[in-house]
């Protein structure tokens, strides 16, 4: 079941008074996000990622096209009680403590007042900020603010969570904890829409991704489909003597990465078997042989470069 559907969603911003000059932030963007998946949106800076989230949340208005969330048009506010949102560079009132901030946003999300205190404690524990509950947030670090923001975005137990650069400024351990929270949410059946420029992170948690460049959708699909395996095999062996190396270079066209590490690019399985036979004949020990994987990053860079070319 589709949770988010957009049809030719377009957003133009006016840059000058009276709208003489326009910037196309999003162009005829159509896609769907299915229930229970983690959907990642990738793209370079200025690609239109944040604009898309803002359109879906009614923070900016579309120039053309429309969108639905939970089957309701985005100008209908009722769907907002079922969503959570963590904006990029969010800003909380700095006169509040961490606990007060969560109480404030819990109330605005429509949670019953009686349920708020235990919910706040649960969320602070989840993001490891229990000890900082009564500290004014102006004393929080960037990473702590990000974790508090994440807690704020899920305090109302939303069915759909929008996260814009959730790990920005968070240390590696904190990033791992955030990833674990996202996976836990997914396991509870929640749908997550994730904006990030950290491709490795998207690859680790997302089921599907869309790549956006200059407001245009250039690729969409499962991470496993996009991050495909290449035709290159990596061999790790015992030390290779010069004589063997020469034969490998001339007969098999390998690419050397060290005295015991090389790559071979081939689609012919016989070539690969001949290579193994040769190595065994020369009494070379094969420690490992791995098929190289095209990372999402490789795919992303290729797609963006192809577009620019």
């Amino acid at each position, binding site marked *: 079941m589709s949770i988010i559907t957009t049809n030719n969603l377009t957003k133009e911003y006016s840059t000058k008074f009276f709208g003489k000059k326009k910037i196309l932030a999003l162009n005829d963007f159509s896609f769907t996000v299915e229930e229970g998946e983690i959907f990642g949106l990738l793209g370079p800076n200025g690609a239109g990622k944040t604009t898309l989230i803002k359109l879906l949340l009614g923070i900016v208005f579309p120039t053309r096209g429309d969108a639905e969330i939970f089957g309701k048009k985005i100008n209908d506010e009722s769907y*907002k009680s079922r969503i959570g949102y963590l904006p990029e560079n969010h800003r909380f009132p700095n006169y509040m403590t961490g606990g007060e901030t969560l109480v404030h946003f819990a*109330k605005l999300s429509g949670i019953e007042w009686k349920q708020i205190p235990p919910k706040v404690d649960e969320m602070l524990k989840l993001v490891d900020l229990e000890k900082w509950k009564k500290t004014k947030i102006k004393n929080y670090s960037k990473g702590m603010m990000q974790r508090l923001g994440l807690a704020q975005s899920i305090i109302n137990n939303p069915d759909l969570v*929008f996260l814009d650069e959730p790990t920005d400024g968070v240390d590696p351990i904190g990033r791992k904890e955030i990833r674990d929270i996202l996976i836990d949410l997914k396991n509870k059946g929640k749908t997550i829409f994730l904006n990030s420029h950290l491709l490795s992170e998207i690859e680790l948690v997302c089921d599907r991704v869309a790549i956006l460049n200059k407001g245009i959708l250039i690729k969409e699909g499962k991470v496993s489909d996009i991050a495909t395996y290449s035709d290159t095999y990596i061999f790790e062996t015992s030390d290779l003597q010069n004589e063997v190396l020469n034969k490998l270079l001339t007969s098999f066209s390998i690419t050397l990465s060290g005295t015991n590490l090389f790559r071979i690019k081939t689609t012919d399985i016989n070539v690969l078997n001949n290579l193994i036979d040769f190595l065994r004949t020369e009494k070379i020990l094969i420690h490992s042989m791995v098929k190289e994987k095209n990372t999402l990053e490789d795919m992303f860079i290729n797609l963006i470069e192809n577009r620019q070319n």
Partner: protein
Amino acid sequence: MIFISFILGIIKEAFAKKIVLALIIIYLVVVLLVIYLLNLESIDAVQTLLMASSANDFRQAIVNIQAYWILGGFSVFVLFTLFIVLVSSFVPSMLKKGYIDLIISKPISRAKIILGHFTAGIIFIFAALLIMITAIWFLLSLKSGVWNVNFLYSVFWFTYIFAVLYSLIILIAVLTKSTILTILINQLILFPFSYILYFLNDKLQAAAQGLIGGTGEFIIKFLYYLFPKPWDLHTICQNIIAGKEITSYQPVYTSLLFIVVMLSLTIFYFGKKDY
């Protein structure tokens, strides 16, 4: 319930502005101290009081002090300047990137966000005025023995004057997103300008039409009805305290219309704006 939570959140923000609150408290303490130090024990002092307040009897003298000294034009300007400084940053601070996104993403309509700000400001200032006016009234009444209940009505009148100004403050704040500009436009332009219009209109009504030509009279009348009328409302308030007859409630109705127009414009603009 979300609307009430939103209002409570803004009132909490008002309490966070400790410097302005401290100034309001200092102002109240000074007024209370002056009342406390008033010498009403000797005949000479009472005679001086009667002369200074242009009154024929002691009760009228106390009533005049309430209406024209305690709630005189200078007091109004000082008090409202403090109030406006206190509330002027509410909207601009909400409109900052990273916070407005969060507020709009919550299940509360844009119209309610504006109305929530308006209501919160009114409730806060009403509470502040209630404490101040009641404290002043109680101490002065205790000291003088004159219990003029009409003085307490000024809580409502002053709240109403504030509402008129605040409806404009919210519009300016949404348009400019600047606290400083909001304060400047309100205190340095509109407040004095509305006084000039009030003064000129008063002169016109006092049969001095000959002083200003027909076109000039039309322009003054037009601007007078267009702009907020805090000084007219203030005069009505003073007259009620002093027990005088109110000849016209026109400023009350036109000010109410002004509030409705300002809030409608704000909601319309805020409702269409991208953040």
